[in-house]
């Protein structure tokens, strides 16, 4: 694939992530922070996000096991942190699932929490795969103007 072709393909990949509602404007903001001295900032912060939030996910999983005495306050606190990080990297759908989870928390709905967390983990894993593919392709394509807004 020649340079132009691969850059167009990369842009199309990104467009697709936006079209599917997986990413929002914040992702573009992150790309705008990249420069010659920090060319991989977005990949670095996303990688850190997945590493850092895996800890939160296991804590939430653990807390959800207490079906009879679920600590909704604790769950809400954990989810608040998770939502914050997800929002900071532009993970739109994951953030939406976080909001849903918090609604179930506030309603004291244990089953709702468990179900929505299952869905959240699916979205989270799906995004991870797609972003990994995106970054891998970006690395192969070489330097380009990554911070362009999708239509």
């Amino acid at each position, binding site marked *: 694939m020649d340079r132009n072709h691969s850059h167009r393909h990369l842009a199309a990949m990104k467009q697709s992530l936006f079209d599917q509602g997986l990413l929002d404007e*914040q992702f573009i*903001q992150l790309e705008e922070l990249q420069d010659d001295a920090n060319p991989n900032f977005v990949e670095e*912060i996303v990688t850190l996000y997945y590493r*850092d939030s895996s800890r939160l996910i296991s804590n939430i999983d653990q807390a959800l096991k207490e079906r009879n005495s679920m600590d909704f306050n604790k769950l809400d606190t954990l989810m608040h942190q998770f939502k*914050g*990080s997800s929002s*900071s990297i532009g993970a739109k759908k994951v953030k939406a699932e976080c909001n849903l989870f918090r609604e179930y928390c506030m309603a004291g709905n244990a089953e709702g929490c468990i179900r929505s967390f299952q869905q959240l983990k699916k979205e989270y894993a799906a995004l991870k795969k797609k972003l990994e593919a995106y970054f891998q392709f970006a690395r192969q394509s070489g330097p380009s103007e990554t911070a362009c807004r999708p239509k």
Partner: protein
Amino acid sequence: MGMATPKETQFHVLAVDDSLIDRMLIERLLKTSSFHVTAVDSASKALNFLGLVEDMASEIHQDVDVNLIITDYCMPGMTGYDLLRKIKESKSLKDIPVVIMSSENVPSRINRCLEEGAEEFFLKPVQLSDVHKLKPHLMKSRVKEEQDQQPINNKRKIKEEFHSPDKTRVKCIS
């Protein structure tokens, strides 16, 4: 990376946030805007860095040159609001501009922070356009520093021009 600002004229920002991701983000945002950054993960670490030791009745004066503090609101232990209060209560630190960040848009929270002396309140995720709002607060502080070093006959005139930061403080996010 373009023009490098020499360390002495660079503004030094202390960023406080318990979130690793948000620390990484705020650091990048600030560095992109040519600030020198120190990032800590708690309010108590921030106070240590600033030379304010909590348990002691008197403040240890430390030669830490921080031009602005930007802190998250929701943090375990001491919140950003508590940190703001401590800074404003401190003789040596009260003139350092403080900015609060929060992921939640709660008008009462915002007003409380502004009333306590925060210069700005940024909704997360913080953007470059937010960071651009910091320079005026820093320039004002720098002018004040310089003014404090002026001979006495000039002081009154300059004080009249730059007095009362309260007028500029009404920044409510609706």
